[in-house]
């Protein structure tokens, strides 16, 4: 009897928690289908309206959501591919080779994880200004390509690649680059997927740096555009919520489709 009540208490807790976790999403979607004032309606509006497309059109007029979404997708795609390549190569060097300075260099990457990004924005801004790169895609993308946590994750995963396999390849005369591309990469596909998702998320949600590096509306990324819309003195909540939905839906669909890799990617391999 005691067992049963303990278990139902567990369910109760979980159901309550799940509702709290999901409700804000539902409410945001509902609010994006109504006119602005409905977010404060009494009693609260909990069912879908028919204003979504109108909100979307207004949103495109005020911040150019199509262009902004394009910016975000382009930046995230280029970033994910290049950061994945750079971090995998670095992780490979750190895990499968012995060389002078390896431990010092690796320690340097790890220690840098402690440095909050906001501590770097001033010098990075001045650097970009000197290079004349402000308000460009490269300014947003380049600073976090060599991402220490991704290097760490790749290194951990690459330890699992057996050395004899690499040695056999070398004896057969496969070039070092060929080994990496044809033998190493195929054997760590799940890790590549997980880290790619981690990097994708990082850039999709990136806010502080684009906020500083970007100066014109045409270059806004989704978070920057949403924030600027929300900072106006007269806020159209229907529009804002439509923007929130646009910024959230792709990543949620992506998450639901690739749950397992996603959770692995967001958590990293620090926990097994």
């Amino acid at each position: 009897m005691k067992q049963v009540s303990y278990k139902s208490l567990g369910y109760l807790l979980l159901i309550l928690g799940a509702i709290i976790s999901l409700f804000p999403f539902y409410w945001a979607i509902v609010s994006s289908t109504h006119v602005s004032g409905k977010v404060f309606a009494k009693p609260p509006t909990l069912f879908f309206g028919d204003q979504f497309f109108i909100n979307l059109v207004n949103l495109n007029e005020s911040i150019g959501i199509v262009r902004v979404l394009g910016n975000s997708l382009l930046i995230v795609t280029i970033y994910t591919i290049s950061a994945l390549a750079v971090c995998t190569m670095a992780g490979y060097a750190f895990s499968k080779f012995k060389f002078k300075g390896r431990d010092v260099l690796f320690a340097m990457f790890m220690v840098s994880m402690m440095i909050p990004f906001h501590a770097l924005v001033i010098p990075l801004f001045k650097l970009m200004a000197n290079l004349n790169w402000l308000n460009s895609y490269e300014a947003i993308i380049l600073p976090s390509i060599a991402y220490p946590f991704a290097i760490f994750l790749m290194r951990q995963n690459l330890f699992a690649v057996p050395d004899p396999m690499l040695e056999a390849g070398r004896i057969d005369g496969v070039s070092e680059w060929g080994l990496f591309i044809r033998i190493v990469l195929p054997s760590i596909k799940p890790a590549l997927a997980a880290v790619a998702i981690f990097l994708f998320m990082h850039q999709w949600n990136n806010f502080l740096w684009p906020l500083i590096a970007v100066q014109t509306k045409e270059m806004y990324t989704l978070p920057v555009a949403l924030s600027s819309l929300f900072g106006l003195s007269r806020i159209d909540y229907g529009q804002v919520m439509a923007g929130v939905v646009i910024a959230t839906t792709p990543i949620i669909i992506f998450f639901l489709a690739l749950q397992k890799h996603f959770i692995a990617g967001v958590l990293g391999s620090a926990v097994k």
Partner: protein
Amino acid sequence: MQSKMHVPYLFLTPALVLFSVFMIYPVIYSLFLSFQSSVQGEMVFVGLQNYEKLLSDTIFLKAVTNTFIILVIQVPMMLFIAIVLANALNSVKRFKALFRVSFFMPAVTSLVAYSIIFSIMLMGDGLLNQIIVATGLDAVPWLSHPWWAKMALILAMTWRWIGYNMIIYLAAIQNIDEALYEAASIDGAAKIKQFFYITIPQLKPVILFTAVLSTIGTLQLFDEPYTLTKGGPSDATLTLGMYIYQTGFRYYDFGYASTIAYVTVIAIGILTYIQFKVTGDE
């Protein structure tokens, strides 16, 4: 073999070049900047003047205090609830996957997007207050009262990160040796007792790991206060990240902003070191 000495360096080159330009150089550059001040648009060397200013800067002190208050309330509370939820999820049989996905969903949403949702829900006549008033209580000034604004941030951050931590704990709980619980059950230990005397001690290394992650996260807090409260009311939710941003990009005092940044980094280093020392192993 000798001829292949250069191979690892080639694999490392892209990362090292980017790291040098976008991490090492800024760190050194900002040390220089922290000794400079802008005089009529020109950066001039002013020695320790910025650091002296920092010592008597009440807004800086406030930003540190705010961050600290949020840290000591939010992190333990969130981690504790996450452990309880992970424990509950571990014990149930049905809908496990569904619960997992639901709890994890907040962790994939953009910080700005969820902050906006919370900001609207927490407004004076917003949804949450409607619910609170409906239960017969007084409306809470979530965003307009210095103390409640901090609570609003804590509430939002907890919502966003609880599932993430729960999943970490769930994985760790599944690794705890069943025999420990069996022995405890035979000895007649109640479930609650087992939770406090087996589960929590067994999770210690993972708790440390999540505590360090959450601490780093809280010290970096920017998106949420920027969107939810704009650092207000009267700087009650101003964080170090926001103060650096304001000093640098609203008042264009790059020298002083770099000083704040430098002191923050050193403080984080010390804090992390202490956290590892206090919790012992590894």
